[in-house]
């Protein structure tokens, strides 16, 4: 079995368009949440959303590639560019080595809706254009990344709701560990538009703290009233230790555990048992003790029940060891299919710079979050090992453990 290391990371998010910007935002506790008037005009209950700058790819990418990319594909392209540069994998390397791509994505609503709008208006399919079908499929991100970067390894998309990005990394870890592939570009991408969020808003799951967008996402806080949708993309390049050593690649960290489970319960409301089993499986896979984990990047999305049950699960598994806990969703909002991957990137930046990013807006704990050691402000802390949770609709759970690489 191979050791699995991380040799490249990249990000395009509402708190920064690259690693440097994101690092600064995390340290300062900067929110990326804003208010979108269009959503209110469309009849949304909540106009809150992560705010992200639209990429300008003309000049960076040829016309044909640009036409095929959906919004989240553009984010994934930029995040992957950054990660490949960090991993020192150039065009030549990708041509002569089998590098795979396993990315998390679970929708491409805007592209589908725009195509249907044209169909309804023009009653003609050709007028939908040549890029639409490639943008509209769930696998739009992986099919495009594989084409743009001319990848030759494993190639598919992982769809697991809000655990997509985490499971994508888990799957990459599993394949490399068992020798099926030397390196895999993993990640998660999420479109950030009203088309994809309307039916989610229908569930009254979003915060309506519209008068103060930066304070709306408040995981674990007593006054939390719902999540804030967000988006972007994050890339995490996994590689076998042997491959990384052989080519002199930078080794940023090591993935040592992956756990998963399904709740077998309600489709949207999590329970405690499912997450507990996911946590325990990851810890067992990593062959570590729970008290070795310095920091937990919680899934906590700022929903009343979700945060409560995760707090119970963390307390059950970690009890007295009380690792630092924070949910970066307090700053970024819920990045959905991207979250599992972006939260690995955020945690790695913390591990690199020895700090725990704050769980902003955490003012008053409730009965369950009071039992956790939640970082309400930035904490100076050397992190040698962290765990990241991601849970999704359908009761899908994923937990990843990453540690500082030691030779």
């Amino acid at each position, binding site marked *: 079995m191979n050791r699995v290391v991380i040799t490249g990371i990249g990000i395009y998010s509402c708190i920064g368009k690259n690693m440097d910007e994101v690092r600064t935002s995390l340290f300062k506790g900067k929110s990326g949440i804003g208010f979108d008037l269009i959503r209110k005009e469309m009849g949304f209950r909540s106009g809150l959303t992560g705010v992200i700058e639209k990429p300008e790819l003309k000049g960076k990418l*040829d*016309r*044909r590639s640009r*036409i095929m990319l959906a919004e989240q594909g553009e984010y994934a392209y930029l995040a992957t560019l950054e990660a490949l540069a960090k991993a020192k994998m150039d065009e030549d390397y990708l041509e002569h080595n089998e590098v795979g791509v396993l990315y998390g994505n679970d929708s491409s609503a805007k592209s589908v809706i725009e195509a249907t709008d044209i169909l309804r208006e023009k009653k*003609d399919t*050709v*007028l939908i*254009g*040549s*890029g639409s079908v490639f943008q509209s499929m769930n696998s739009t991100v992986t099919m495009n990344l594989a084409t743009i970067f001319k990848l030759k390894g494993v190639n598919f998309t992982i769809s697991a709701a809000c655990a997509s990005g985490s499971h994508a990394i888990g799957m990459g870890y599993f394949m490399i560990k068992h020798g099926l592939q030397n390196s895999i570009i993993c990640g998660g991408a999420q479109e950030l538009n009203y088309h994809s969020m309307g039916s989610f808003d229908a569930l009254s799951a979003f915060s309506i703290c519209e008068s103060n967008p930066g304070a709306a996402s408040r995981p674990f806080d007593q006054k939390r009233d719902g999540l804030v949708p967000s988006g972007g993309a994050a890339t995490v390049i996994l590689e076998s230790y042997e491959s990384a050593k052989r080519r002199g690649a930078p080794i940023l960290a090591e993935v040592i555990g992956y756990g998963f489970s399904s709740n077998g319960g309600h489709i949207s409301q999590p329970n405690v048992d499912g997450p507990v089993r996911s946590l325990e499986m990851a810890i067992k896979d990593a062959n570590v003790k729970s008290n070795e984990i310095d920091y937990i990047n919680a899934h906590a999305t700022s929903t009343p029940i979700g945060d409560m049950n995760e707090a119970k699960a963390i307390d059950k598994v970690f009890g007295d060891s009380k690792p630092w806990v924070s949910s970066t969703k307090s700053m970024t909002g819920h990045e959905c299919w991207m979250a599992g991957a972006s939260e690995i990137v955020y945690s790695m930046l913390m591990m690199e710079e020895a700090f725990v990013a704050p769980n902003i807006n955490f003012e008053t704990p409730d009965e369950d979050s009071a039992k956790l050691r939640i970082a309400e402000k930035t904490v100076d802390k050397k992190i040698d090992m962290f765990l990241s949770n991601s849970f999704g609709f359908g009761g899908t759970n994923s937990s990843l453990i990453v540690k500082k690489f030691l030779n």
Partner: protein
Amino acid sequence: MIGNHPNEDEYLMAYSMWQLKNNYKHMNPEDIINKVNAFLVEEFEVEESKIEPNANLMETLELDSLDLVDLVVIIEKNFGFKVKGEDFIGIKTFQDFYDYISSHVTA
């Protein structure tokens, strides 16, 4: 919503479409060539200097079958008519293309 009354929007939309279709009746061949070149350069990101009347359309613009779909879209957007797939069979050079567009808009 451009106007206040729902019917007014439909009226304005219908009038705009009529204008689109009928403006081209007054375009001379040179105007059509200029307009076509402009959208080919813009859409396919090719240098205008490469466009010559006797040059091969598909080769010069490096068009594949996917691009032909987009060409149909741009023609509809710019000249208000829908190209049929079989129409492309007779079009080899840029001049063939200009003639084809002219015949559809000035008819």
